[in-house]
């Protein structure tokens, strides 16, 4: 479970480029919930995710993950309870390390690292069976450098790495946005499969309203650093993109001008 209360964050405070990214943003995600987050450019989606992960520190407000106040903790101290997949397929893995070395890094996420061999014999079966579940033939390429894989393959492995050890929440930051449509739908299907199988609590930022309604069990829309609406359960069933837009206009009395949101 994760609770964010009244988060504020302003970039470039006191400069001409002052940019308030979060303005009193609050959100509670319950155990086992899969929440999709939408919003136009600059709505604060990525900043919110970065604040949850610890990559940026909020100016005020409180972030509680699994009953622990993590507001002031740096990224690496939160990593035990927060797993992430980035938008850039190259960002979630190390291309100079082998597939098994990347997985070995991930299996120790948030734990103490000692001087014993990183890639242990007893990990290999687990690595192989989880790679086999991707159906990409990677289970026979454990010793290959990560850099030899395509963007889609690397994103699939990133997803696997994020789910290799338990976490309180999985953060997905537009993780299919940089992939071609076919690979994107493969990675998205894989995402829902992993989240369902392991009953993960997840927060997925997406640029596409369609995608936001298709997967997950709750949808949150951000606008100007705040939650403008939050729908789940019966209200969300059968909802279409045009309904979302109407809902948004009704709530805010605003026109959405960001074409990418309409087209996505």
């Amino acid at each position: 479970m994760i609770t964010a209360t009244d988060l504020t964050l302003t970039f470039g405070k006191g400069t001409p480029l002052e940019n308030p990214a979060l303005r009193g943003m609050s959100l509670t995600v319950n155990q086992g919930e899969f929440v999709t987050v939408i919003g136009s450019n600059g709505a604060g989606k990525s900043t919110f995710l970065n604040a949850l992960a610890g990559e940026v520190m909020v100016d005020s407000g409180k972030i509680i993950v699994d009953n622990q106040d993590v507001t002031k903790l740096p990224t690496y101290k939160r990593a035990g309870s927060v797993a992430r997949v980035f938008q850039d397929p190259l960002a979630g893995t190390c291309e100079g390390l082998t597939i098994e070395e990347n997985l070995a890094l991930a299996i120790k996420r948030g734990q103490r690292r000692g001087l014993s061999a990183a890639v242990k014999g007893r990990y290999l079966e687990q690595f192989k069976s989880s790679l086999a579940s991707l159906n990409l033939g990677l289970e026979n390429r454990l010793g290959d450098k990560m850099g030899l894989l395509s963007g889609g393959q690397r994103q699939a492995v990133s997803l696997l790495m994020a789910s290799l050890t338990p976490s309180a929440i999985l953060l997905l930051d537009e993780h299919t946005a940089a992939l071609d449509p076919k690979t994107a739908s493969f990675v998205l299907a894989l995402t829902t499969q992993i989240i369902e199988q392991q009953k993960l609590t997840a927060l997925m930022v997406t640029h596409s309203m369609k995608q936001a309604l298709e997967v997950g069990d709750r949808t949150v829309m951000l606008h100007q650093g705040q939650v403008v609406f939050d729908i789940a359960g019966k209200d969300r069933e059968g909802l279409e993109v045009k309904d979302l837009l109407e809902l948004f206009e009704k709530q805010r009395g605003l026109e959405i001008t960001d074409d990418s949101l309409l087209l996505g």
Partner: protein
Amino acid sequence: MLSNIAFYGAIETGLIYGLVAFGIYISFRVLDFPDLTVDGSFPLGAAVAAVLIIEGVNPWLATGAAVIAGMGAGAVTALLNVKLNILNLLASILTMIALYSVNLRIMGRPNIALLTEETVLTPWYNLDLEFHQVPVVLFTLVVLVGLVLLWRFMKSETGLAMRATGANPRMARAQGIATGAMIVLGVALSNGLVGLAGALFAQSQGAADVTMGVGVIVIGLASLIGGEAVLTPSSVVRALIACVIGAIIYRLAIALALNADFLGLQAQDLNLITAVLVTLAIVLPGVRTSVIARLTRKKA
């Protein structure tokens, strides 16, 4: 072309610079941290070892102290970068400059002679070996032990965390790796190896001198890049072997260049030769690739 003594001398210093190249491999390659501290930590290691040896301390203990001193110097550079947010290159230059004064303070004078003292090499002269072969045998052992330990470390959980820190810090943090601590540990380890090299160099050359660190970074880099040009560093162990091979080739090339009378080169031309060799080592792999590409295209 080379006399026996000049040949063994080149191997001996090559092995010592192999240790320096290990250190530079950790900072420049593993951590992507351009660290010039080595120009100060090399004479620091020499100074600490020399002072302790003339005080009558066991030479191996003195050498161990030199390693710790080197690690301290590296830790200072890394902390300036990590805690005070000073640019890594600048942080290392600050430490390097400061070490010049520190080294003079440690030695109390610009140089200390060790010719008559007992060093780590002394017991080995009792073995049935030629005089100029002794340092080669001992330093080969030291380099081999260092290579195996470093290789094992880079394959360990902590070593892997260090490699991830240099390759993709954002991913490393997301995996719960304290990247700042990894940088401190790595740069300390790197300069500990350089301190060791300085201590051994002083003992084999018979003196520690405050100016002996000038250009160590360039020689170390030349060894690293030259080794990588000869042996493609596709794995950690190959990269480490490349460091040693590069350092030995570099010293042999220097010895050959200085011994080839028809070239008319003298000792003062050393830095010029180094610069030329480094340039060649950087450029040649590219030339080789394009030549191979052209040849295979002709075949096809």
